[in-house]
């Protein structure tokens, strides 16, 4: 019994650093890069959905409809395993970034659209009344208020993404979960390894949640308590 425990502890200790390093070098950058590109897409899509241009509205609505209505895992498979049949071959990591960004963009475009619409009409009018253009009003007056509304749901989406990056393992990205699978393959201790990797994901989400609350508090400084 003692020997067994020693072996288990040994596995946990030996695998912790490689897992953490993979997490820091793959999971975290994958999350940040995909989220940044996704946010960019989300803003573009939100503006398109709010515009009076029917073509822009149509394209953006179609995008949101397709991405939200199909599983992320299936999307990743189409991008990585499917597209080569059309002659488009994308490496595992770029494929993962594309898949995650598209997903973040679609979900959060709705968050941003709703946040922009939550700013009272009087704010637009006040901005116009001091002579601002639509662009100036949006950037200087509306967005700063909308972002405050959007931060909590965006934060949730960000934390989800940290965990969703584990899906990249299925398209051969050697991120943290993939690494755990590899170690399991020669230690034969799935329970230990998968629990260990779960704990590391939990650490990541906890740290990032704290970061999120900091940002929220900072943005709430001008709101009546």
């Amino acid at each position, binding site marked *: 019994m003692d020997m067994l425990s020693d072996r288990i502890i040994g596995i946990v200790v030996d695998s912790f650093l490689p897992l953490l390093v993979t997490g820091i070098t793959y999971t975290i950058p994958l999350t940040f890069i995909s989220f940044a590109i996704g946010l960019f897409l989300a803003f573009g899509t939100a503006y398109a959905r709010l515009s009076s241009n029917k073509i822009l509205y149509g394209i953006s609505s179609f995008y949101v409809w397709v991405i939200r209505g199909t599983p992320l895992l299936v999307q990743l498979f189409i991008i990585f395993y499917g597209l080569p049949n059309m002659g488009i071959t994308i490496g595992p990591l770029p494929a993962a970034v594309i898949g995650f960004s598209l997903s973040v963009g679609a979900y959060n475009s709705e968050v941003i659209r709703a946040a922009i619409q939550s700013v009272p009409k*009087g704010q637009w009018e*006040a901005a116009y*009344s001091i*002579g601002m253009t639509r662009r100036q009003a949006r950037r*200087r007056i509306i967005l700063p*208020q909308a972002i*405050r509304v959007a931060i909590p749901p965006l934060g949730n989406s960000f934390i989800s993404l940290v965990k969703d990056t584990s899906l990249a393992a299925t398209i051969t990205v050697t991120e943290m979960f993939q690494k755990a699978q590899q170690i399991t393959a020669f230690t034969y201790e799935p329970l230990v390894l998968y629990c260990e990797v779960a704990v590391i994901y939990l650490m990541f989400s906890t740290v990032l949640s704290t970061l999120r609350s900091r940002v929220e508090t900072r943005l709430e400084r001008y709101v009546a308590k």
Partner: protein
Amino acid sequence: MIEIRNLHKSFDGLEILKGIELTVEKGEVVVIIGPSGSGKTTLLRCMNLLEIPTQGYVRIGKEELDVSTKWRYKEKVVLPIRQQSGMVFQGYNLFPHKTALENVMEGSVIVKKRPHAEARQRAEEMLAKVGLADRMNMYPHQLSGGQQQRVGIARAMALDPSVLLFDEPTSALDPELVSEVLKAIKQLADEGMTMVIVTHEMGFAREVADRVIFMDAGHIVEEDKPEEIFERPKHERTRQFLQRLQT
């Protein structure tokens, strides 16, 4: 200073303004009164093109606009006219994420592209003028309604508009806060500012107005000096309206 001819405005086929003719001279204070739904606020909003007239001619200062059936909204046509006037809103509409000072500076810096220091100095002067020199660094939610509205006045004034438009500036205020706002408006009137004021404060209208306009159902029914309107109204509708206010 302001010239409006044959101004019509419809919302979804419902005509709110039915051919308004109005001229306001430089330095004149015009107060618009009338029952709710009579089109007072819509008329005011057509003056700075927050509402685009369905048809008609609007001139403010040297900038003019003639809306015909073929007219299409273009920002670069609307902005020069809008920049002629400043507007004070019923609900203040201060920018909640900016301090009082930043609210007043915003237009100077972003729209007029004034240097920061100059914009700041101008904003400080304006806030001092409305009696808020000691509240400059507070956020709107830290100010009372009356103080917020005075920031609103300073914000509108900071851009040196040719005309100030007031849309029921005291309607959202607690009664005890009304007078401080009226005082600030009165002071501007005394300094010769051209103003158009929509209000329900009849005592104030009488005191500050050079001319009172009574509107009903999308028409200007009667316009005259305040003492004429309030003491010898010529039209039956004006009489009824004023009578109902007294009871």
